[in-house]
């Protein structure tokens, strides 16, 4: 009896030892050297694997950081400057500070402003819709409203507003990874410099049609009248292809252009309410409405 036990013990121990030996040899032979700093850097990255850095995931980005001579264009928009500085200190390199940005939807063509002419009945994808025709409205540049940007966002930072049929960015959650910018077939979404208190002034339109055509398609379209360009004291506004663009680097958020715009295509967001001056009544109320739009949904006569 004890012999059997002994025999069993010996055999099992021998098998175990042999297996351990094989495992050890194989592990040594096929060992892949990895810089331990990759793990360290990966640790401090946000682990969102959003691809905002241009790499497939955070680990790939960490590898690239370790390999790179200097950080140059390598930047994690989600982690921001803090994260990059930490990485730099681990790797003994210099971090390049980048001004934080936030995604901005440059279309205000809600259904009451932009009359619907057709009904889309295809697959729920902006890319497919845009390859099929110009969109449900007369504007071929604006938001198609099928929410491909929402699907692309890994941070739950962009949502369709059912009242307007347009996507809205939640500034606090947006990490400026650029996934929505990439996803939008009409290039409506732009990453713009983040100002204090999330204040923004931008042309909420990307319509390149002539003024009359644009205006016919959408009440709040930029008609390329150049009034804003003339009034801007900082030379921040350019008009090209009947479309104004405010350079976020030059803009000082003075809000002069907002009042000047005849179609209310320029939006001011998160500013305190203006004092009632000689501003046209419509624009003022519009601006007010925009102020509260993050807190409460706008009231619309008809929903889409």
């Amino acid at each position, binding site marked *: 009896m004890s012999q059997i036990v002994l025999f069993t013990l010996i055999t099992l121990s021998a098998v175990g030892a042999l297996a351990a030996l094989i495992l050890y040899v194989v592990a040594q032979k096929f060992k892949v050297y990895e810089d331990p700093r990759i793990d360290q850097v990966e640790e401090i990255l946000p682990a969102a694997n959003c691809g905002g850095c241009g790499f497939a995931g955070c680990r790939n980005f960490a590898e690239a950081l370790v390999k790179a001579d200097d950080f140059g264009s390598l930047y994690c928009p989600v982690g921001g400057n803090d994260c990059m500085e930490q990485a730099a200190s681990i790797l003994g390199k210099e971090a390049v500070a980048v001004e934080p940005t936030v995604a901005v939807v440059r279309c205000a063509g809600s259904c009451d402003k932009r009359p619907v*002419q*057709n009904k889309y*009945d*295809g*697959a729920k*994808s902006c*890319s*497919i819709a845009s*390859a*099929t*025709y*110009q969109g449900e409205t007369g504007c*071929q540049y604006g938001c198609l409203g099928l929410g491909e940007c929402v699907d692309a966002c890994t941070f739950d930072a962009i949502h369709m507003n059912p009242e307007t049929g347009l996507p809205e960015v939640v500034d606090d959650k947006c990490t400026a990874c650029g996934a929505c910018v990439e996803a939008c077939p009409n290039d409506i979404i732009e990453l713009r410099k983040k100002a204090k208190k999330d204040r923004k002034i931008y042309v909420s339109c990307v319509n390149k049609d002539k003024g009359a055509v644009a205006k016919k398609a959408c009440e709040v379209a930029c008609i390329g009248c150049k009034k804003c360009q003339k009034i801007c004291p900082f030379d921040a506004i350019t008009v090209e292809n009947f479309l104004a663009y405010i350079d976020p680097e030059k803009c000082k958020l003075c809000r002069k252009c907002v009042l000047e715009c005849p179609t209310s295509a320029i939006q001011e967001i998160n500013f305190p309410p203006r004092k009632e001056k000689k501003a046209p009544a419509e624009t003022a109320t519009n601006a007010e409405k925009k102020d509260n739009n993050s807190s409460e949904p706008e009231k619309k006569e008809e929903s889409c």
Partner: protein
Amino acid sequence: MLKTFAKGGVHPAENKLSAKSAIEVLPLPKKVVIPIAQHIGAPAKPLVKKGDEVKVGQVIAESGGFVSANIHSSVSGKVTKVDNVIDSSGYPRMSVLIDVDGDEWLETIDRSDNLVTDISMSAEDIVKRVMESGIVGLGGATFPSHVKLSVPKGKTVEVLVLNGVECEPYLTSDDRLMLEKAEEMIVGVRILMKALNVSRAIIGIENNKPESIKSVTKVASRYTGIEVAPLKVKYPQGGEKQLLKAAIKREVPSGALPLDVGAVVHNVGTAFAVYEAVQKNKPLFERVVTVTGKKLSKPSNFMVRVGTPVNQLIDAAGGLPENTGKVINGGPMMGKALNSLDVAVTKGTSGLVIMDDTESVRRAESNCIKCAKCVDVCPMGLEPHLLSKLAKKQIHDKLETERVMDCMECGSCSFECPASIPLLDYIRLGKNRVGQIMRARK
């Protein structure tokens, strides 16, 4: 046993409602909108400007390259604008707008009805005339015809195959043309044979057009080398590769042209246009358009000038029925829904199908049950379920190796899918993106 292609295919309800309506000439429109890009390839360059007087048949936009085609005025009158107007692509594109004034034709055009059967032109001259006349494939693809007639060195054409299949449901324009203009069409076939220097031509016609088969066979029997091949009804037999497989049992390899298996395919409508261009010196500015739909009071076939607004055709066919959901430019399987009724008829408009609100509904999508019906019906032997998933996930390298570029967008997979998954929508998207990637690589 009737011939057909072997792999895949579906049987949509035929609904050839307008098959008994003879071709009527539509009255001249008051205004026409003639897009300068009515064909595959480079858009034409406009030659006229606002205020110019034009005559019927005058070139108003000239071919923008080898793969391109001239655009001729379909009416006489005054050019009011050259501007972006929404066309059948769904986007505004450059077009020439003309106010119609009378009906003055260029004098060089033979307007008589005499049948001219003797072919006096040489092969080169025929190709040149086809090019000058702006003839494109009239089956719907609108590929410039002279390109297909210019055989590159080192390639030989053994057989010309004429596409009279008209496998799209509803459409009857080719059917009526073959029935009413068989004589002219056969002369066109002979012209094409001369241009290609072939002694054999096969006219493929699906078996649901017995009268056309009879009339074409009767005329064709007078000439040697022209055969009529009745084919079993199956969609998409009108696809070039499927037709060749059905008619001459040859498979065009992936990425190759019919030319690579010694064949050239032309539509029967194109053959008729070639007859008119070569024998009558009449450029392509009008075509037969089927206007049909279950609720339409008078489904018809019209001879229409290019540039005529679509709503005028619908009015002539009894007016737009109530509760119209969709107006399709082309057949219901491959045609494109129009977003406006002001869109003009172009060279590629083979028909307008008017669908009512209930007929044009897409069912709600549900889970893929992996029934493989899409694989069974794919005429190209692809796996639509896989391609659509890859396209959705944007895995473009795998899409390419799974041969997404072989897809001809026939729609059989979406048609058949029991879970109503919009397979083709995503495949088309993937195909576009892979195409861009491949072009960028070159």
